[in-house]
Structure formats: structure tokens, C-alpha cells
């Protein structure tokens, strides 16, 4: 066990910086991928544009078609995909810190199933009120989330109790959703799109509602980084280090529920992003939330934009639900990373 003074410092600095270099590389690469995804999304669709046309469309009125299509249709939709992807990925990452469970997903807080039941109740039973679907979905999600947390609360938040309460509440609300779908099976078309998540027809109007709340939620998420990191050491170790574990869990879960809630109420249910993106990021960059959380946000955005671009172009003019695309393509990629082992080691 004796060690000489010389053997300690040289290899250390080298290995540490190697890890840091890797992290920075992943960060930069993900940013580049996001940028390319935005470009691809602006470029492809019913009309194709070159990069110079995209720039023209964004900056001037010269090319009227490019201006209309890019600035009024594709750009807001791309930005919404970006925001939603970031929200869901960050929500998932925060919940994984709380639950310390690899299957933690924003849906676990009841947000998705509550939003779904409220939204399809409006769509099927009161179709003439369809304008308030996002608001109803948000309120439904918030109520379901409140229900899950009050069921799980017993002198504090126990992750296992949240998971159990979440699964139970999701089952009950999901039953309600299925029941309505069957009773009103003649009007199911639009509902199906919503239940699988879709950005079809989303415009600046939706972005203006979504963006401010998302910025608030994401900032709170970033402020939680140290706490999330410490929670990963377990309840006792976190308490030992002076973290108020119950308060921390509550703040992190509610932030996650909020981010998921505003996203789901805008674009419908999109699974997978919140569950898988944080895992992929962990595999690539490790569990340190200082890197993991921002990269999750970037990667969530990039994946969401790519999935949406594919969803609207693959079988044009038919639009596919983006949630379905995400699951079909993202799932196997995740399994590949998992088999390969990735960087989820030192």
C-alpha cells in the first residue's frame, strides 16, 4: 500500500483530462448534431430548400415561398420539437435522480395519463371545445400528478411509493382513456394522433405559450444539478452531506412533472424521450449531471427534431405520430448502446 510521491500526480492529470476531453467532445458533437438536425428539418418537406434558400427565407422576403414555408411553418415547428425534446429529456433525467431507478419516466408522475384523459374527454365528448385541449391537458396532468404525490407521501417521498402510486394511477386513468376511446370509436382519428404525439399544425402561437414555461422549467432543472448528483449517492449519503432529501425529491419531481406537463399538453403523448435519452447520455458521458443534464437536453432536442422531420416527410402527405417514430428508431439504437457498454464506466 505504500506509494511513492512520484507515482501519483502524473498519470492522474492525464486520465482526468482524458475524461474531460471526452465529455467536452460529446457535448460539442451533440451540439453539432442538433444544429444539423435543425438544418435538415428546415430543408426537407413538401418543398425542398437549399441552405442558401433557408438563409434567404429566414432573413429576407425576396424568396416568398421560402419565407412563408420556412419562417411560418417549418421554423416554429422545429423550435417546438426542440423545446419539447429538451423538456422531456431533462424531466426524465431529473426523475431518474429522484427514483434511482432506470425505468423512471416522466409518465410515472401521472402527468401523461392525466393529460391524456382530460384531452380526449374534451376531444371526444365536447368536440366543440377543442380549443381548450392544451389547457385541459395541463390541468389533467397536474391533477393526476398531485394524486400520485399525495398517494406516495408518507412522512416524505419514498421513490418506491411514487413508482407504485404512479403505476396504479396510470392504470386507472389509462382505463378511462380506453373506455372513452371505445365509446366514441367513430371519432377516434384525431385522438390517436394526439395519444401518440404529433407536431402537425403547430405554429408560433403554440411556441409562444410553450417557450416561457419551458425556459423557467429548464432553468430550475439546471439549478438542481448539484442536488441531483448528490441524490445519486443514496438517501443516507445525501442526508449526511446536508441535503434535505425530502424537499430535494419534491422539487426535482415537480420540476420534471412541470416540464413533462407543458410539453404533453402542447404536442400530446410522446414516450421514449424522457426514458431513453438520459440513458443514452449516461452511456456516452457518464452520470455527472453537470454534463449529463445539458447533453440530455441537446440530445432530446436533436432526436425530437429528426423524428418529427421523418414523421412528416417519410409518407408525405400523410403525417405519422412522432412518438411512434421515436420508439421505433430510438429503441434499437438504445439497445445497441446498451450491448456495446458505451461509456457508462470510467
Amino acid at each position, binding site marked *: 500500500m505504500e506509494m511513492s510521491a512520484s507515482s501519483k500526480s502524473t498519470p492522474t492529470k492525464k486520465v482526468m483530462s482524458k475524461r474531460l476531453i471526452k465529455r467536452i467532445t460529446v457535448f460539442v458533437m451533440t451540439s453539432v448534431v442538433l444544429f444539423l438536425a435543425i438544418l435538415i428539418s428546415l430543408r426537407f418537406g413538401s418543398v425542398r430548400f437549399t441552405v442558401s434558400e433557408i438563409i434567404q427565407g429566414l432573413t429576407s422576403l425576396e424568396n416568398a415561398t421560402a419565407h412563408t414555408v420556412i419562417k411560418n411553418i417549418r421554423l416554429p415547428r422545429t423550435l417546438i420539437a426542440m423545446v419539447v425534446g429538451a423538456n422531456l429529456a431533462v424531466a426524465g433525467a431529473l426523475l431518474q435522480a429522484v427514483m434511482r431507478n432506470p425505468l423512471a419516466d416522466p409518465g410515472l408522475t401521472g402527468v401523461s395519463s392525466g393529460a391524456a384523459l382530460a384531452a380526449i374527454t374534451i376531444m371526444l365528448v365536447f368536440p366543440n371545445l377543442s380549443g381548450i385541449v392544451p389547457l385541459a391537458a395541463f390541468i389533467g396532468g397536474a391533477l393526476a400528478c398531485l394524486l400520485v404525490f399525495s398517494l406516495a407521501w408518507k412522512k416524505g417521498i419514498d421513490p418506491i411509493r411514487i413508482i407504485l402510486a404512479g403505476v396504479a394511477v396510470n392504470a386507472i386513468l389509462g382505463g378511462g382513456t380506453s373506455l372513452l376511446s371505445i365509446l366514441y370509436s367513430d371519432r377516434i382519428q384525431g385522438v390517436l394522433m394526439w395519444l401518440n404525439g404529433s407536431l402537425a399544425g403547430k405554429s408560433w402561437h403554440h411556441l409562444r405559450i410553450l417557450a416561457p414555461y419551458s425556459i423557467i422549467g429548464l432553468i430550475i432543472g439546471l439549478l438542481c444539478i448539484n442536488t441531483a448528483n448528490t441524490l445519486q449517492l443514496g438517501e443516507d449519503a445525501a442526508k*449526511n452531506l446536508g441535503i434535505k432529501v425530502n424537499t430535494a425529491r419534491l422539487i426535482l419531481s415537480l420540476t420534471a412533472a412541470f416540464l413533462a406537463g407543458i410539453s404533453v399538453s402542447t404536442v400530446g403523448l410522446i414516450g421514449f424521450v424522457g426514458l431513453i435519452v438520459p440513458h443514452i447520455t449516461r452511456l456516452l458521458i457518464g452520470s455527472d449531471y453537470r454534463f449529463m443534464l445539458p447533453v440530455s437536453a441537446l440530445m432530446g432536442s436533436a432526436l425530437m427534431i429528426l423524428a418529427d422531420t421523418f414523421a412528416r416527410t417519410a409518407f408525405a402527405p400523410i403525417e405519422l405520430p412522432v412518438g411512434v417514430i421515436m420508439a421505433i428508431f430510438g429503441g434499437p439504437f438504445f439497445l445497441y448502446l446498451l450491448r456495446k457498454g458505451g461509456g457508462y464506466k470510467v
Partner: protein
Amino acid sequence: MIKASNLKIGYDQKIVVEDFNFEIPQGEIVSLIGPNGSGKSTVLKVVSRLMNSIDGVVYLDGCDIHRLPTKEVAKKLSILSQYQSTPPDFTVEELVSYGRMPHRKWYEAKSQEDEEIIEWALKQTRVEKFRDRSVNSLSGGERQRAWIAMALAQRPKILLLDEPTTYLDICHQIEVMELVNKLNEELGITVVMVLHDLNQAVRYSHRLVVIKDGRFVMEGTPEEVLTKELLRNVYHVEAEVTVDKMIGKPVFLPIGLSYAADF
């Protein structure tokens, strides 16, 4: 330094510890001993504010520990639970750096002083050569030392350890005990630990506190505590107790049970 008065502790409806009083003087190593399920770990959890008591107060330097800001407590006291886990990619150095958390504001970055203390903690526990390895890749004994390094980085005056040697082989058990001894002697850290192994408790503690069925039985020096009568009454074990000439402490040799076990 730490004083517990009239502790009453329970899980849900079940009371597991009652009328428990004890005091830990500064600079000593005190071990809580007692049979399985006697409540020793529970007492340690309450004393370290990981858990609330139903009744009674724990004083840290004269203040109710549950009313002190938890971050302030974390600068004076560190507790290592029996089970620890880290994400698979956390390195030893990263783990140890968490020990500085209580000393920083949430927006502050690691200072030069933090770096120095982390370095010092790695050295004290001799885990510096593992600093870049993942905690999970270490052996049980090395891992325990890495966690003790994290605790040291908190610069605590008092260190609480819940069964620090359980699951370790005998060599690593002694290694951890020697480390605890060194921290006490050289740094003056007060140590309170729960131990299963009576001979270890006797060997490395200044004082022993005996708990049985959630009740305080007695406390005293190892010589006062480790007697035939105690082993019979608390553990139901008949044993020979002699003072070992080499270490000058009492040791015991179990002979059998004090009741007729019918297997």
C-alpha cells in the same frame, strides 16, 4: 460532544428503542454493541439526524441536532451507513469531492482549499492510487476506505460508522479498524460506531455502550463491559473471558449457549 436524552424511536407503530440515554465525550472511540435487532443501528441513525425520533433529543455541542441547519451539522459530523452505492462511473476522487459539498454554497465551484482537503483525505485513507478508478471496481475494503475519505473531506469532528467491517474479510476488517484508530489518534476525531464483532469492539474502542431490545444496558470501558455475566445476559452465550497479555484487553472464548437450544 454528542448527548442523547430519553430517546424513543419507532418505525410506524412499533417502538424499537425507548428510554435511551448516552453521552459521547470528545476524542473517544465509542462502540455500540448488542445482539441483532437490538436497535443499535437505529440509534446511530437518530444520533446522526438521518432519522427522526418519536421523543427525546440528540444534542450536538449542546444544540438539538434536528433543529440545527442540516448543512451545518454536515460540517461537524459525518455518518457512513452500512450500505453505500454510487453510479457505476463515479471515480474515487469524484466521490471524495462530494465531501466538500456542505462547505460550499450551491453556486460555488471547488476552491483551492477544497482541492487540498480532497487530496489530504485521499492520502489519509491511502486511496490516492485508486483516485481515477470507479468506486464500484474496488474491493470491499478499498471501497470502505474511499467512503471514509469522503467523510473525512467533510472535515468532521465526529465520525459515525454503521457496521464498517461487515462483509469484509478479516484483513480488510483490521485495515478499516486501524484506519479508524489512526483518525482518532492523529486527528482527534471522535468516533461512534456500531460493531458486530465484540473482540473488535473491545480492541479498538475506549468505551462500549450495550443495547438490548432497544434499551440501554450499560456502558463502560471494555474491561468493565466484557464479562461473563454480560455475555450470558445480553447474548445468551456462556464464555470464558480472559485478559490477553499481548494487547492487554479482555478477549472471550465462547463455550456454548446459556440455554438449552433444541435443534
